[in-house]
């Protein structure tokens, strides 16, 4: 069944169009290009290589793990075995189901090369650490060790993530709100520009983390000082790019609005700010990057919770499995927030679609 279904599918494709079939016959190099090009196109079939690579990689990972498991703690080894087996079964099931489910097929065509590559990375990691012992322990545990840290310490990790989220969102929101207000003022009002610009230019470039000694003295709690520092880190790029976006509003837009009877509030909120939005979003992205950095440093130094704190705490106990587990969580956490901001940008700047390439 599993083998038969894709074959039938392929035959059907071959009949329908020579184009979808042709990459199979091509030499490897153009084939690779074709793969990249075909990703966004809603074509019907998937090449068999793409389809089978993932279960193959998972199977290899599993075999290698069995080979290495002899030297590892039983519980750790078992958990990773479950993980890889689950992956293998899911991949096989997906192959079986995809002829009937076009949504899944599209997703597989886009994602399965990437997932396969990730599994290959796991294989290499396992090979280098648990099998060949090329890297010194305890600094470089194998994937099984990291996975077991991730699962066994999930309660603390979840708690740390939650604390980081509160700190990050608190600081980011504060920084963005203040940054937008000061940016619009500096960009629009000449007086605000005259007095605000020097402050921005002198205070802004100082990395927020350099204020940590001062923040510790001034603030009643580490939590507040961390929020303040993150806000400061976000404030500078947001203000800078908002101000430049506002002051670069095309004069003719403002002229047109004036002849439509616009008052100052309309000019600011309905012309200058929308016109500055692309620039504002660059500021928001830069601010987000700065906020991640400041968050982790602040948590490492002062705050007694959060992912940054967790990493340095685990390091103190030489539990490097936990360090990597926390880094994995951090990667997922930060990239989720980044993706959310991208989604927001896509929504707000939908009018730019087709004007510029994102």
């Amino acid at each position: 069944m599993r083998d038969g279904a894709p074959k039938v599918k392929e035959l059907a494709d071959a009949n329908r169009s020579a184009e979808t079939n042709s990459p199979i016959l091509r030499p490897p190099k153009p084939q690779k290009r074709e793969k990249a090009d075909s990703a966004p196109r809603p074509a019907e079939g998937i090449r068999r290589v793409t389809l089978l690579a993932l279960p193959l990689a998972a199977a290899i990972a599993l075999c290698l793990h069995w080979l290495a498991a002899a030297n590892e703690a039983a519980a750790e080894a078992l958990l990773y075995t479950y993980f890889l087996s689950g992956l293998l079964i899911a991949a096989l099931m997906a192959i079986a189901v995809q002829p009937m489910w076009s949504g899944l097929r599209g997703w597989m065509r886009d994602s399965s090369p990437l997932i396969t590559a990730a599994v290959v990375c796991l294989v290499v990691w396992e090979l280098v650490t648990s099998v060949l012992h090329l890297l010194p322990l305890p600094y470089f545990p194998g994937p099984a060790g990291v996975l077991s840290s991730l699962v066994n310490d999930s309660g603390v990790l979840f708690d740390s993530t939650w604390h980081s989220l509160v700190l990050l969102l608190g600081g980011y929101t504060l920084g963005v709100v203040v940054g937008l207000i000061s940016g619009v003022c500096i960009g629009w009002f000449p007086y605000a520009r005259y007095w605000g610009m020097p402050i921005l230019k002198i205070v802004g470039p100082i990395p927020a983390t350099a204020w940590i000694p001062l923040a510790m003295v001034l603030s009643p709690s580490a939590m507040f000082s961390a929020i303040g520092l993150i806000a400061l880190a976000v404030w500078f790029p947001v203000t800078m790019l908002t101000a430049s976006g506002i002051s670069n509003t095309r004069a003719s837009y403002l002229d047109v609005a004036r002849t439509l009877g616009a008052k100052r509030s309309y000019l600011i909120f309905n012309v200058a700010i929308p016109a500055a939005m692309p620039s504002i979003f660059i500021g928001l992205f830069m601010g987000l990057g700065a906020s991640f950095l400041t968050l982790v440093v602040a948590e490492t130094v002062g705050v007694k919770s959060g992912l940054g704190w967790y990493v340095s705490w685990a390091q103190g106990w030489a539990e490097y499995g936990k360090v990597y587990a926390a880094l994995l969580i951090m990667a997922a956490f930060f990239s989720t927030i980044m993706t959310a901001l991208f989604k927001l940008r896509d929504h707000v700047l939908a009018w730019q679609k087709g004007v510029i390439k994102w």
Partner: protein
Amino acid sequence: MVATLVSGVAKEGSSLDVTNVTKDFAAQDRTNQRTLALDGVSFSIAAGEFVSIIGPSACGKSTLLRLIAGLDFPSSGELRIGTEVIIGANAERGLVFQDPNLFPWLTVRRNIRSGLVALGVAREKNHEVDDFIRLVGLEGFADVYPHHLSGGMAQRVALARALITHPKVLLLDEPLGALDAFTRMQMQDEVLRLWQARLTTMLLITHDIDEAIYMSDRILIMTPRPGRIDRVISLDMERPRDRSHPDFLRLRSEILQLLDFGRR
């Protein structure tokens, strides 16, 4: 309202008087000299009249239009709409540039509506938005963003946006200058139709002598450095005008002579 907008004639125009207007700018270099852009410009336009200004580049046409729009102030002299002196820009005088200058972040509908929003009457007059979309023939494009529009369509949106506030005078700064010849002729008829429906006072700046003759009741010819009104030509040909009529062609060569481009 709808009826008068589309079929009947609503006399919305107002007279415009420009009296002895001078405008000078500080020169760009450090010589402290001032360039005279307009020198004692005077003319009057009756309510509902269609007047064109033609003249070579840099003769102060656009400066004059900005003064009438209220986006700039004269160094001396006076500008009046009806009996009111012009101080600052408002919705009484609409302005359409060569570049449509549509707000790219708003759809066609919201661009046209923006004048109503700016005046704070969007809720009461929202029904007019659809009338104006129909008036400029853009049904079906209402929810499209401006960069999807062709040049002619974008300029129609700009016209609708300028007209929705019911200005007493519509100032057109080479609005059709960037369009191809066919679209341009089509748009000339469009503008005339909008004008005849509303009898808004129209002041058109153009480089195109044919356009000026085809559209206007009167043509003002400007000379550059400093900008002055050199000559006024009244036209009493019937509309729609025939671009190949002998009178049309005679007038054309006359104006070319005046502008010093005639056969010598």
